[in-house]
């Protein structure tokens, strides 16, 4: 099987595609040109930088390097998660950090150490791309679930107060809202499980096939990745919403409604 190698001139040709997108935006007055252009430059710059950084890191493997990189990725992801929230919650940074860490540790233990078992176990060639996948997906699930949970709580404030007034513990009073928010946040991942391979070939597999791997081998990887992707999403969502419960309902079983108001961001 042949693997295809691109030169920078080939990559530059892909700008033609972007030119079409920008032209369309212009013709239809979508005003997306500016963001498309900035996005194009950023993605070129960021990916090129990352490429060189990875090349350098792969040549200097050590557990310390991996630890440092994983920590930075976790912190950046958590910060990004806080930024994406429409309503500021005190301590939300740590909720994201803890949820993502749990998902990361589990996927490193099972997928990296147990299934792929590279040598050494923290081999950056394996661990960094996988960590990125886990954190990116986990962050999406947490952001969706958290925003939705707070929306549901406002929507269901009457039901939540009724349940609490009857003596329901916070977990029981919030259960319908949490269920709703997790369903909404996880539906994309679950749908992907259903249709994977039928409509589109997922990125990992596409990349491997283009790089010359036999399809059957690429599929094995993809299955493992899918399992990891969905499960870490579920873990992040469940952990984050469970912790948010303690933030949004106090020890006296009172909802802290003021936290749900956008004005309380101060």
């Amino acid at each position, binding site marked *: 099987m042949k693997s295809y190698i691109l030169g920078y001139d080939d990559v530059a040709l892909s700008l033609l595609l972007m030119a079409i997108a920008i032209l369309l935006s212009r013709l239809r007055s979508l005003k997306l040109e500016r963001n498309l252009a900035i996005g194009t430059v950023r993605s070129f710059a960021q990916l090129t930088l990352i490429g060189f950084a990875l090349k350098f890191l792969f040549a200097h493997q050590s557990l310390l390097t991996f630890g440092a990189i994983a920590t930075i990725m976790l912190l950046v992801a958590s910060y990004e998660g806080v930024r994406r929230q429409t309503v500021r919650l005190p301590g939300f940074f740590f909720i994201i950090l803890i949820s993502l860490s749990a998902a990361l540790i589990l996927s490193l233990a099972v997928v990296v150490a147990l299934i792929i078992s590279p040598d050494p176990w923290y081999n950056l060639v394996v661990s960094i791309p996988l960590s990125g996948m886990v954190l990116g997906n986990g962050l999406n699930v947490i952001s969706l679930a958290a925003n939705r949970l707070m929306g549901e709580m406002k929507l269901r404030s*009457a*039901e939540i*107060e*009724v*349940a*609490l*007034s*009857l*003596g*329901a*513990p916070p977990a*029981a009073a919030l259960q319908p809202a949490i269920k709703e928010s997790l369903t909404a946040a996880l539906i994309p991942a679950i749908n992907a499980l259903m249709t994977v391979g039928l409509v589109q070939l997922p990125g990992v597999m596409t990349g491997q096939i283009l790089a010359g791997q036999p399809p059957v081998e690429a599929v094995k990887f993809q299955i493992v990745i899918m399992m990891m992707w969905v499960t870490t999403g579920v873990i992040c969502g469940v952990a984050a919403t469970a912790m948010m419960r303690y933030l949004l309902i*106090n020890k*006296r*079983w*009172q*909802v802290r*409604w*003021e936290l749900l*108001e956008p*004005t*309380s961001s101060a």
Partner: protein
Amino acid sequence: MLKLESVWKYARNHTGPAVLRDCSYHFVAGRIYAVLGPSGVGKTTLLKTLNHLLPLDRGRILFGDEDIALMPPQQVRRQVSMQFQTPAFLADTVEEELRSAARFCGRDHINPSEFLELVRLNSDFLPLMAKTLSIGEQQRVCLARTLVTLPRVLLLDEPTAALDDSTAEFVIETIRSISRAAGLLTILVTHRKDHAAELGDVVVQLDGGQLMDQDS
């Protein structure tokens, strides 16, 4: 039985005037209190603080001689039961509604029709969808639900507001008989002076953040 001691409570967002300002009042066991006051004065907020659903900004509320802020929350909520201004349901059918209320307050085995009987609905209502009932029936289901916790204090927020006169009359009669039979302390909020006078042993005015007895 329920005693406010120098209670301060601001509206949720802490802007605007205090809803309760240095408010002290003693609700005596076994009596029916009718709280009157214009819209927005803080009647609902008062009931929610008594149910410990909202924290106080200052002062304390005693249940018996215990500060409710120091009691286990579930114990407060079981003994002080609240019916809200607008009916809201946790389950689909009336029977499930009463059973989930029972589960929440830690009672496993209840006979739902027994509680419907208290609010004079027969057991044909058990399988019906709570949300499809008339407002009057919904309010009575909500009243039955508050009784499931076997409370000693009943807080009722505008139990007659959405009802026509004859249904209101009927609900008032029901509330009175339940309160009397179980010797409950009942605190109900209304904006109707005639209902207040008819139902309340004591008519209380909430105004300027204070509770004051009205001479009858």
